[in-house]
């Protein structure tokens, strides 16, 4: 499957932390034919393996989970309350349609309601509605979701102009799609290192998946793929641009040699790239993977993305393609 189509497919599927199996299944089905071995582990992580000449072990990692919501209270037949699974800004919710996933594969509709302006009092107006007051209308379902049902924003990925995509879960299915494309490319070229692809679970809720899977793989080097904030105005924020190519992280959570090699690979192959300064922890799985066992050398490659954790996330397919070229060049160099 072509990169853009594959990204649309996996990003539109649902998979909040702990409930990633549908996404994992699609990736598994598609990556199998480009891998020597594919398996899932106890935690639900998906690991694909592509044999090289036994010269070193390289891990490419991306988390598969997305931000979501959980039904935290049943009010009555018509309404439920929700809470966040990962960092969800409650300001994106009023008027939003949700897909709610109950037990036994049942799918429900939810509508985050909002009092019409006609009935608002002046004291209702000047404030943000947080999780204490937000409510979800589930009246339209013949059967109702249960307490503990997971939900995601119903905002499937669509095209915005010729090269951009917008929708939910582009954080971090964009990176998953990049790794998938790299595996496709690897099937056509020779590489020395054994390559592991790790699609890890539960990053948004604390990064459990990446840690345990890295423990079992024990790579020499791990390249973590995630997304990063693009086009943010504000003097303190790094100037990362959409369509500026993948961002190479630099800072304490990234091994300097790995960074330099990535940068060199980019320059030698005319891959567009940007540098993302990370003065503390990166907020990605690199933070935990670096500390697995006796330590793992990490590199961080991020896809620029606008409006992270909203249903209006935007990425450029050009940045993904550049990331694929970068990683392929890096693997050949390895």
């Amino acid at each position: 499957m072509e990169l853009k189509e594959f990204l649309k497919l996996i990003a539109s599927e649902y998979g909040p932390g702990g409930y990633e199996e549908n996404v994992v299944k699609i990736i598994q089905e598609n990556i199998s034919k480009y891998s020597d071995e594919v398996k899932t582990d106890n935690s639900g992580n998906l690991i694909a393996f592509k044999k090289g000449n036994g010269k070193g072990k390289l891990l490419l990692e991306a988390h598969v989970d997305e931000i979501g919501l959980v039904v935290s209270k049943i009010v009555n037949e018509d309404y439920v309350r929700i809470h966040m699974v990962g960092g969800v800004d409650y300001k994106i919710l009023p008027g939003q349609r949700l897909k709610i996933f109950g037990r036994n594969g049942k799918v429900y509709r939810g509508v985050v309601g909002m009092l019409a302006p006609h009935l608002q009092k002046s004291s209702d107006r000047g404030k943000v509605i947080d999780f204490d007051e937000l409510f979800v209308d589930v009246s339209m379902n013949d059967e109702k979701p249960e307490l503990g049902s997971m939900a995601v924003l119903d905002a499937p990925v669509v095209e915005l102009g010729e090269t951009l995509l917008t929708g939910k879960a582009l954080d971090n299915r964009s990176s998953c799609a990049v790794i998938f494309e790299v595996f496709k490319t690897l099937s056509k070229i020779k590489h020395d290192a054994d390559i592991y692809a790790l699609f890890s679970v539960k990053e948004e809720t604390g990064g459990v998946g990446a840690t345990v899977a890295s423990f079992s793989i024990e790579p020499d080097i791990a390249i973590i793929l995630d997304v990063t904030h693009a086009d943010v105005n504000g003097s303190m924020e790094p100037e990362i641009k959409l369509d500026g190519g993948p961002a190479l992280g630099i800072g304490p959570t990234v091994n300097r040699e790995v960074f330099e090699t990535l940068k060199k690979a980019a320059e030698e192959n005319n891959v567009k790239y940007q540098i993302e300064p990370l003065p503390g922890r990166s907020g990605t799985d690199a933070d935990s993977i670096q500390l697995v066992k006796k330590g793992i050398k990490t590199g961080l490659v991020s896809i620029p993305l606008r409006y992270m954790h909203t249903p209006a996330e935007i990425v450029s397919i050009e940045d993904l393609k550049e990331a694929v070229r970068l990683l392929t060049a890096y693997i050949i160099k390895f």
Partner: protein
Amino acid sequence: MFLSELSTIAGVSGNESKVRDFIKKTIENKVDELYEDKMGNLIALKKSKTQSSKGRFAFFAHMDEVGFMVTRINEDGKLSIHPVGGVDARLLPGKRLKIGEKGTPGVVGLKAIHLQDNLDNVPSYQSLKVDIGVNKKSEAEKLVSVGDYAIFDVPFEEYSKHLIGKAFDDRGGCSLMMDLIFEDLKLPFDVYFAFVVQEEIGLRGSGVAAEEIKPDIAIVLETTTAGDNPELEEYKWATHIGDGPAITFMHRGYVVNKKVYEWIVDTAEKKGIKYQLKRRTAGGTDALSVSKRLFGIPAGVVSIPCRYIHSPSSVMYKDDYFDTLNLLKALLEEGEVILS
């Protein structure tokens, strides 16, 4: 019911032509007269075969919906928008819009949660911008223009008992009128159907249509707010979905003509049709503007209750729609009482 089609058409106040075209095309063979007035109101006439009553009866429903207008294209290619009618800015973050005649896609961006100093800054039209995927004013100008209208880009959905969609206010009323036109009713008098413009920006279309029609009596068909939210005590609800058509005794600026109001309630009771009274007086309807025209037209209001109107995801209970339709049919058949 024509809501699946009507809901998805773009027709913000002042730009109702696509809604009007759809209605015109659908009903033209079912009415005796059909014309558009200077304002853009679409007026249809169904003649009585019996002419047992000489009066003129008129229904009104508005075609326009709330939405947005592009007011500025900024240097960075992002659009500033202003609401057309009442759309709460808090609904906008993260939503998709369709802009202009071509329906150019755009999204309302919001700074990532990770980068906000204060999560409780209230979204406002000053702070929100629409991203159409370009970085320069000159590129944006190839896709959109200042003055373009925009709507929420959301699908219509049908469930076993409920509907979800935008613009139910007042495509619900338009759909009711279309259903009445399609029904083969024994009309005791001539009935006019006015699909009017510009309700949401101050009840501007209906008065002109009333001058054109000169009805002896008018009933305004609306889709009205429910407000039966979980945190509101029941005594604060305006209406409740599932309880049938909402009949208005008074709203902002207009006490419904007593004779008309009682006739509607009496008819519902006589025919055993489920109904509720609208229990809040907030919000106005075209009954206010119609009642001020000519020598004062007696006007009543019947509405389909609906949750979250003026949002991208209104929720309607289908039986409320059909109970409302049944009440309107009963009114037409019993209409001689009121016009005699």
